[in-house]
């Protein structure tokens, strides 16, 4: 009897050891490529092919400075921060307004409109970037015509050079950035509205009633009652959308053609496509792209995983 029990324990132990080895190996395959990317970013163009060590003995930290300046990853990095911040802020405002409307306010067609957003999450639309590109180009043409039409008038008021400069600035900077921001807000809208609406639906109505008696109008209730209460849901959509925008590639390729407006993902492909690729600098750029995401993930992993499961459950 005692023999059987110890045999059972031994079998359980062995099972655990096998499980740990299995988990450990898979975990290593997740981490090693990243460590190797980081290590390569600290080598030189000469040693990057020959030095097999994971982290070199003499790390070239200067690569990060060079990647930031010469490799233009500094511009890309700041652009990525800009797009992520603006798009996520936009999504929070637009989707929380809409979700509050769908959840609490009555108007004809509200059910239909909400289901339209839901349907957008479920109908696959591959190649939707084609008409989106056409749309952005058309708006750009209209804008160009408008600017050329009003330039002569503006030239009476402002110096000629200033008008021209501001026109190029609008066409090459403001417009592509704005177009990209709106496209990306649209990408994150449906899921965010869905998450926030489910949250608002479960929220107790009493607080809103109290605020109404205190003289708050609908917008005031949204701002001072709904938004503060929805903080956990807003955290989920903030992190989820941040990852999405930071990692987006194809719309950036189609809409943002100049280097001054490109985000990191696009910048990496451009840098890699150059004739002589400076691998350590490329790896430094990749590390710069990955590190913020990994840090944010490590801090907020609970929210991220919640967002992923929520996103999957809708689909």
């Amino acid at each position, binding site marked *: 009897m005692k023999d059987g029990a110890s045999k059972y324990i031994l079998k359980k132990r062995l099972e655990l050891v096998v499980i*740990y080895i*299995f988990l450990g190996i898979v*975990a290593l395959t*997740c981490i090693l*490529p990243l460590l*190797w*990317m980081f290590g*390569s970013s600290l080598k030189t163009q000469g040693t990057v*092919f020959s030095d*097999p060590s994971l982290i070199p003995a003499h790390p070239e930290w200067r690569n990060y400075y060079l990647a930031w300046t010469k490799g233009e990853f500094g511009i890309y990095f700041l652009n990525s921060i800009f797009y992520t911040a603006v798009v996520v802020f936009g999504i929070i405002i*637009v*989707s929380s*307004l*809409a979700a509050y*409307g769908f959840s609490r*306010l*009555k*108007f004809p067609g509200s059910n239909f*409109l909400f289901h*339209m*957003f839901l349907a*957008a999450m479920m109908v*696959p*639309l*591959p*190649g*939707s970037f*084609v*008409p989106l*590109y*056409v*749309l952005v180009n058309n708006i750009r043409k209209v804008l160009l015509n408008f600017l050329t039409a009003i330039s002569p008038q503006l030239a009476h008021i402002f110096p000629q050079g200033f008008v021209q400069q501001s026109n190029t600035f609008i066409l090459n900077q403001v417009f592509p950035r704005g177009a990209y921001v*709106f496209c990306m807000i*649209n990408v994150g*809208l449906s899921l965010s509205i869905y998450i926030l609406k489910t949250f608002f639906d479960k929220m107790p109505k009493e607080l809103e009633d109290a605020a109404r008696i205190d003289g708050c109008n*609908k917008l005031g209730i*949204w701002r001072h009652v709904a938004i503060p209460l929805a903080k956990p849901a807003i955290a989920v959509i903030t992190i989820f959308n941040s*990852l999405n925008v930071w*990692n987006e*590639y*194809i719309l950036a390729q189609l809409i943002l053609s100049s280097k001054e407006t490109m985000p990191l993902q696009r910048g*990496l492909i451009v840098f*890699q*496509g150059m004739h002589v690729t400076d*691998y350590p600098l490329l*790896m430094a750029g990749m590390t710069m*792209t*990955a590190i913020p*995401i*990994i840090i944010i*993930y*490590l801090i907020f*992993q609970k929210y*991220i*995983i919640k967002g*992923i*499961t929520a996103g*999957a*459950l809708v*689909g």
Partner: protein
Amino acid sequence: MKAKSILINYLFVLPAVLIFGIFYIYPFLKVFQLSLMEWDGILPTMQFVGISNFKEIMTDKIWWDSMWHAGYITLIALTFQNGLALLLALACDREIKYGNIFRVIFFIPPILSEVVVGLIWQWILDGNYGILNNAFNAMGMHSLVRNWLSDPKTALTCIAVVHSWKGFGWGFIILLAGLQTIPKQLYEAAKVDGADSWQVFTKITIPLMIPVFSMVIILTILGSMQVFVLIISMVGQGLVHHTDVPVLRILASMTGSSRFGYACAQGIIFGLVLIIISFTQKKLSERIKQA
């Protein structure tokens, strides 16, 4: 007063509806209009050609090949990626030390961008300098050394494996979440009744997990069929046909050969294929559930 109140209510959803209308509904409808046109994307005039774009797609061998390539990547994702995800989820669905650390690590590849993942693995699999070939050489297995990403025999498999590497952590999280909803009393009751682990797995775990499996399968299919940024970063955009997938063909029709109408027609066909696949899968899993 009433009308004004309804008007104010509309204002809450107006920004969302406007953005959605301009950047989702309009392009959605525009695809159908453009698919009937021959248009280079630049000239103000487009030529109406009826369904000739669709007819052309039917005999476009490169297009259908690209569809098979995506199907192959999807097949590997369904088996290798989801199989690994399920094994890991089963391993973590118990009292183990450091379980949370493993969970955190497995989810790192899914949060990285396809560009970064693609470039890392391109560098690992590189024919001349790649760490994989170096490792094979160091171990004396010279016969295994090859140009992984330019050899048509291995390129697609490498892409599929990297895609699975990036995706298994995602499947793992969802499957684990599903496993944890199964009440532990069920397992205990089965143990008391004398069931072994295999019986518990096939008679309790699998039947209860069918809805989760079904969801993971659909999302894997939709995600894997539409993979393309990973391929751009691993082998470049449209340089070779043996790693082409439908979305890359659409992109090539648009930016490469400037045929916007054809690109839209391809998008519609591909969208239909995806809808048919997920519909069939849904029906199948419903039938399995009833059986």
